[in-house]
């Protein structure tokens, strides 16, 4: 490769990276800090903003816990046993990845909306799912459904079940085997799956938007509150919230990259040791 080709490639790459990938985050910070840091922080202390932050944290924690517990059990089932329709189960778990966020919200309205199958009946008992936090949780659970299973499954399949069978012979219970034998080997992958679920859960917009009803201070998560502020021409407040959310999500993803490196190194060391 000639020096000229090489340099034009380098310049072209950095130009694309600067325009496409560096300008957007810079713009978020610049718009948020347009009236200074105190104004930006003040806008985050607004009661509706605080309520949105709290709701996002609650929904994220709940969906991560639920999808991690069930996701680990599903990965255990798929990787350690052979049973009929196993392939169908794997395919079903993967489906939410290919579903448009808006569709992921719509399906819950079809069940629990005012014109849904059970919406009216549940309303009768004063149980509200659509346009309430329960609906937001269901939408978030759907959107983040496959990530934990997907991340740990290849590793757990590769591990086989020799260690587990040995533990069974020694009289270990299911929880002991899962907790002391299977999961320690998969811990970095599991952590990476949990962090991916976390980042996706806190940033979800389309699905949550459809089921939330957009009630400020009640059913608005951080992404929804960003939309409300932006459409209300409160640019500084919108971008301050956007900056906070982007920093939260990018930190989570950054940790994930770090732990994935650890996992890769652990896997290499494991290969060398065996």
């Amino acid at each position, binding site marked *: *490769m000639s020096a000229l080709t090489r340099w034009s490639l380098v310049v072209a790459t*950095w130009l694309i990276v600067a325009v496409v990938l560096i300008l957007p*985050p810079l713009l978020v910070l610049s718009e948020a800090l347009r009236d200074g840091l105190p104004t930006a922080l003040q806008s985050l202390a607004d009661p509706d903003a605080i309520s949105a932050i709290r709701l996002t944290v609650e929904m994220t924690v709940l969906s991560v816990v639920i999808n991690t517990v*069930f996701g680990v059990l599903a990965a255990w089932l798929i990787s350690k046993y052979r049973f009929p329709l196993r392939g169908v189960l794997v395919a079903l778990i993967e489906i939410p990845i290919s*579903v448009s966020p808006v569709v992921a919200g719509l399906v819950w309205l079809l069940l629990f909306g005012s014109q849904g199958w059970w919406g009216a009946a549940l309303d009768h008992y004063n149980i509200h799912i659509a346009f309430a936090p329960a609906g937001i949780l269901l939408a978030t659970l759907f959107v983040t459904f496959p990530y934990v299973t997907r991340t740990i499954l290849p590793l757990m399949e590769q591990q086989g079940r020799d260690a587990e069978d040995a533990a069974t012979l020694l009289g270990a219970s299911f929880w002991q085997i899962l907790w002391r034998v299977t999961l320690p080997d998969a811990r970095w992958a599991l952590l990476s799956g949990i962090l991916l679920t976390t980042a996706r859960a806190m940033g979800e917009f389309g699905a949550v938007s459809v089921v939330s009803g957009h009630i400020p201070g009640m059913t608005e998560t951080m992404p929804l509150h960003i939309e409300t502020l932006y459409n209300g021409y409160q640019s500084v407040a919108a971008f301050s919230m956007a900056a906070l959310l982007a920093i939260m999500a990018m930190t989570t993803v950054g940790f994930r990259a770090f732990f994935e490196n650890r996992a890769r190194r652990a896997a290499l060391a494991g290969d060398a040791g065996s």
Partner: protein
Amino acid sequence: MAEATLSVRSRTSDPLPGFRLALFSTLLWVGLIVVLPLTALIVRPWQEGLGAMTMALHDGRMFAALRVSFFTAFIAALINVPVGLLLTWTLVRVQLPGRRIVDALIDLPFAIPTAVTGITLATLYGPQGWLGKPLAHLGISIAYSTAGIVVALMFVGLPFIVRSVEPVLRGLPPEQEEAAGLLGASSWQTVWRVVLPSLLPATVSGFGLAFARGIGEYGSVIFIAGNQPFRTEIAPLLVVVRLQEFDYAGATSIAFILLVASMLCLAGVAMLRRRVARGLITGVN
């Protein structure tokens, strides 16, 4: 069925404990969160009767929205192919100053929440924006037009191309290119005849992933799109509009088409990858 029951029964004699617990919890989880809602999506359009279905199929606005979504997703993925290949090539084969930074930045569109992307691109390319203002002087307007949708989908789709092609390019031995050079091929011939054909399956699968994501994308698009019915209204937005009109049948028929389209796309990508893995498609070692 009999075979399934038999097999489950014999499975209980598997010495490894936990099968029943894992099976029941997984069926509960998959059933409640995935199967139940998707069943509603598949059953609901037929429940309203054939009248509602035919009405939905005569909805010009729906077809316009689907056309906008498919067209912009296709164009964005198409433009991302040369851009993504260029980035991947420099990342893997050129001593790029700041390579680690570029490598980390490629994943940025995956990490930023879509609503943040949406308001950021709308402001950046808006009439007063850092890029929108100079472009307006040149007579180019991007925000609130079809071009705006394409720009947003390009941002969202770029990592798919790079991350699909990157491992394959890394696995290609540079000796192959050196050999082509020794045999008298010019560097363009080497790229066209030797390198690109080997990258084709990975590029197609990256294209498919970006396209599938693009037709369903909502948050990063609606702020920059302008959202004019028949012109810049994307299909996912029309789902939301129909829901606000309490037209569940209309919303569900669009959702159904979107679901089938993206599942076909991803099934195609999965099939392509399996064939490549089995060596049925040559060019990848």
